[in-house]
């Protein structure tokens, strides 16, 4: 490792360390004004009373503060629940708002300094590490030592990284109140973009985008000489930065609804929720455009693009989840399970999620048009179940947290309902396939090993069979790592796309189907 890379790695680790420590800075205290300012009117009286033991007290850490908060708040709710006074229970979660409001921390007075020391240093260190990578080496496949690396082959570093990611996602989704220092730290950036203070989602979006950019640059270095890999990496970097991160914030600045123009239902599972529909319909022409654009993507965009290019047009060129998987997740692609058994589970689970998403959305829409007489608030329960189980636990905690355990496409392979939809089109009505080059396969297994979707590519290649699989995201890495030039991603006529009985070229003794 070059000196500059070592320096980069050290800076990254220092930045990461700072990022982990910052949440524990500062002190917390609540007063009446803060409670009133951050509480819905109907809860103000109750909360002032419930939280009265906390008023004016200074708490020296987030654990102390949030401990006291939940003692008072949950104690109050638990008592009501025990008495079955359901209508008096406060269902809203105020912990994040109060923690943010009650925080007094050096981060607030010097947000840019802390940002530079944490996220800034980590990103800068990452760049220093990635930019000089492979500089003195010829272009070619850079998989040396992947399975000798503790991080990349489920060693102790892999376990630690996975655990860290899982904990981060759990805190982000369910305990964001512990992250208020970080949220306050990035608030000036949010205010620059949208004019609003940051939420934990802004913090997440910012880290997510920076991670894709820094690790996207790693991909440029790793795949020097492979234009396909470089272009699609540039594409996911662009779509994440512009479409997922900047444009929605700027829309808010312009008093328009927050909207990611490249997110498609059913991945974007709340697209048809009543509050979303109301937002669209109450936001004039722009809102209507968003609604129509979103629907057109679902019914025309997906089938058309997938017909011509396969699902890769979305999954490995546009999608944000795919963008993270293809950049940050690239070091872990070899960890996907290639067994036939895994494929069986995959099909049940991913299509199960698709059915769930469709049913949930159907019920929601029916309920909306019936003026909520159809199911009343039951859809809310359904939404919170889906949001918890699929949107947060599966897509976030498992989807990303499991990179170092099960590869970088766990969510895309087993869970994403949009991938399931794209996959059905790709399997049955598309011009896309991976062709195998006659009889040139030597069954070495590089393709299967590096397939992030767990496709046993070799099983097809050694038979001379086209690879037509609903799950293939068209990342092109099987083709890149093949030492004999056997695999090529192609769009072509549908005729003979699916070889039921492939024939290997080169042996005139027999005509056989391998």
């Amino acid at each position, binding site marked *: 490792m070059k000196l500059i890379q070592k320096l980069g790695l050290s800076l990254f680790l220092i930045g990461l360390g700072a990022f982990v420590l910052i949440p524990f800075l500062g002190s917390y205290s609540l007063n009446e004004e803060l409670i009133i300012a951050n509480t819905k009117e109907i809860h103000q009286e109750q909360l002032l009373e419930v939280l009265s033991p906390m008023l004016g007290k200074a708490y020296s850490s987030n654990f102390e503060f949030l401990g006291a908060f939940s003692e008072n708040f949950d104690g109050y709710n638990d008592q009501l629940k025990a008495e079955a006074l359901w209508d008096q229970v406060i269902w809203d979660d105020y912990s994040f708002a109060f923690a943010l409001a009650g925080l007094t921390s050096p981060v607030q007075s010097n947000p840019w300094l802390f940002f530079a020391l944490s996220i800034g240093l980590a990103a800068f260190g990452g760049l220093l590490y990635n930019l000089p990578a492979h500089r003195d080496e*010829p*272009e*070619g*496949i850079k*998989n*040396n*030592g*992947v*399975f*000798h*690396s503790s991080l990349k*082959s489920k060693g102790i570093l892999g376990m630690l990284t996975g655990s860290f990611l899982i904990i981060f996602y759990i805190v982000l989704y369910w305990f964001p109140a512990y992250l208020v220092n970080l949220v306050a730290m990035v608030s000036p950036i949010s205010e620059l973009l949208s004019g609003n203070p940051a939420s934990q989602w802004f913090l997440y979006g910012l880290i997510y985008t920076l991670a894709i950019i820094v690790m996207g640059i790693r991909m440029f270095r790793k795949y020097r000489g*492979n*234009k*396909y890999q470089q*272009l699609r990496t540039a594409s996911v970097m662009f779509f994440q930065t512009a479409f997922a991160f900047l444009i929605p914030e700027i829309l808010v600045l312009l008093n328009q609804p927050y909207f990611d123009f490249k997110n498609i239902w059913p991945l974007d599972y709340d697209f048809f929720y009543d509050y979303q529909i109301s937002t669209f319909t109450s936001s004039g022409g722009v809102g209507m455009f968003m609604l129509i654009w979103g629907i057109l993507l679902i019914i025309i965009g997906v089938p058309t693009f997938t017909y011509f290019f396969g699902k890769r047009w979305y999954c490995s060129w546009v999608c944000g989840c795919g963008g993270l998987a293809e950049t940050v997740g690239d070091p872990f692609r070899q960890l996907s399970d290639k*067994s*036939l058994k895994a494929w069986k589970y995959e099909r049940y689970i991913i299509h199960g999620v698709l059915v769930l998403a469709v049913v949930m959305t159907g019920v929601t829409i029916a309920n909306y048009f019936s003026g909520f007489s159809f199911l009343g608030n039951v859809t809310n329960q359904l939404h919170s179940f889906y949001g918890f189980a699929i949107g947060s636990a599966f897509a976030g905690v498992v989807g990303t947290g499991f990179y170092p355990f099960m590869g970088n496409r766990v969510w895309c392979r087993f869970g994403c309902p949009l991938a399931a939809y794209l996959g059905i089109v790709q399997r049955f009505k598309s011009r896309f396939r991976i062709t195998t*080059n*006659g*009889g*040139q396969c*030597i*069954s*070495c*297994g*590089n393709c*299967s*090993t590096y397939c992030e979707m767990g496709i046993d590519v*070799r*099983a097809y290649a*050694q038979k001379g069979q086209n690879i037509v699989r609903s799950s293939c995201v068209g990342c*092109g890495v099987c*083709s*890149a*790592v093949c*030492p*004999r*030039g056997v695999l*090529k*991603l192609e769009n072509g006529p549908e005729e003979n796309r699916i070889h039921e009985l492939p024939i*290997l*070229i*080169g*042996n*005139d*003794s*027999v005509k*056989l189907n*391998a």
Partner: protein
Amino acid sequence: MSVNRHVVIIGNGISGVTCARQLRKLDDQVQITLVSGESAYFFSRTALMYVYMGHMKFEHTQPYENWFWEKNRLALKQAWVKSIDYGSKNILFQSGEKLAYDQLVLAVGSTPNKFGWPGQELKGVQGLYSKQDLELMEENTKSPVNRAVIVGGGLIGIEMAEMLAYRKIPVTFLVRETGFWNNVLPQEESELVGRHIGSHHIDLRLETELKEIISDDQGRVRAVLTSAGEEISCQFVGLTAGVRPNVDFLKGSDLEVNRGIKVNLNFETNLPDVYAIGDCAEFQQAPAADRRPIEQVWYTGRMHGETLAHSLAGKTTSYQPGHWFNSAKFLDIEYQTYGTVPPVWDASQIDSFYWEHSSGKVSFRMLMDKSGRLVGVNNFGFRLRHEFFDQALREKWSGTKVISKLSQANFDPEFFAPYHLEIQKDFKRQFGGDFTISKPSFLQKLFGAKV
């Protein structure tokens, strides 16, 4: 299910396994046993280098999951064969066990050539062919190796050089010939590979032979002496001067063995119900004009297996190879060949078209006979489509026709540099020909790599 006979296949490499799989497809009744001492399950020998280099784990080199064998009723027996009693149709294992067969297929593969060099059995000196060789290489390179010497410039030699380079072990590569692999590659291609080897900081010594391997006082290699009289200090020596049929344990019986096991084009040996396929078989006559009596590549092993399975299933089938093709990878440079491209040719019979990219890492050669018909191609650093050249060779296309349709032969990923355009221009310059040079697509122009 009633079993009609027992076919035992010794060797679970690509030929033996292909034969077993195809036979099972053709005949549901036959009992099939695959015997191997080397490994419990079939693995891809060509991928051993990637295990050493950490690209894969050993299990990734196994093309079939472990349940596959039982599901297809292919019995696996892991044992080393000691001898075979062809009279009583019994195999005797080193463990003392016996196994009876009705039909026997010998697919016992190769073993590295050793030409009687002094010191060739020292510790730290080895070839690379089997799983055991790989394990030995791990062992031999565990303790510090300041320099390794590789003897013999073929495909295994360059793989070994790449493997050692990954472990940051400096390599000196002794090659007897005047150019790298120039008993197979024409001069320009051989030089192209030679330059690339140099760019990987591998010390390539052409026209240099191994004289002697020198021992330290513990029976370990300490140095080698070259034909140039130089003593090179080293702690590891790779012997990669080709392979030969692994038939020593079969010699001295009724089975006719020359360099390999002698077979006819039906893979029948001189003994009834005994067949030989793959690297270990030696044809009484070469199967085609451009073929050798011993075929030692993955693809031919597979074809031998496919063909013999038909005979064993009752449809006696002679081996009739199609047009030759092969591929390899020299460090970062991929190589493919279709048809016949010998290292040298008679210029009064053959015309050669050669194009090389200015990077010196991409090249294309096409040989044509005097009537302009395609004879064969070599391509380095970019990919060409097997199906295209198989058709061109079968239909005896002219070289001009091949070049005019070269865009259809391109097998590089999308957005890669369209080398075929440069090749077309260059061909037109050298040989003329009435065809239009292809045009890159709009997207290719916008985003594609430049030549």
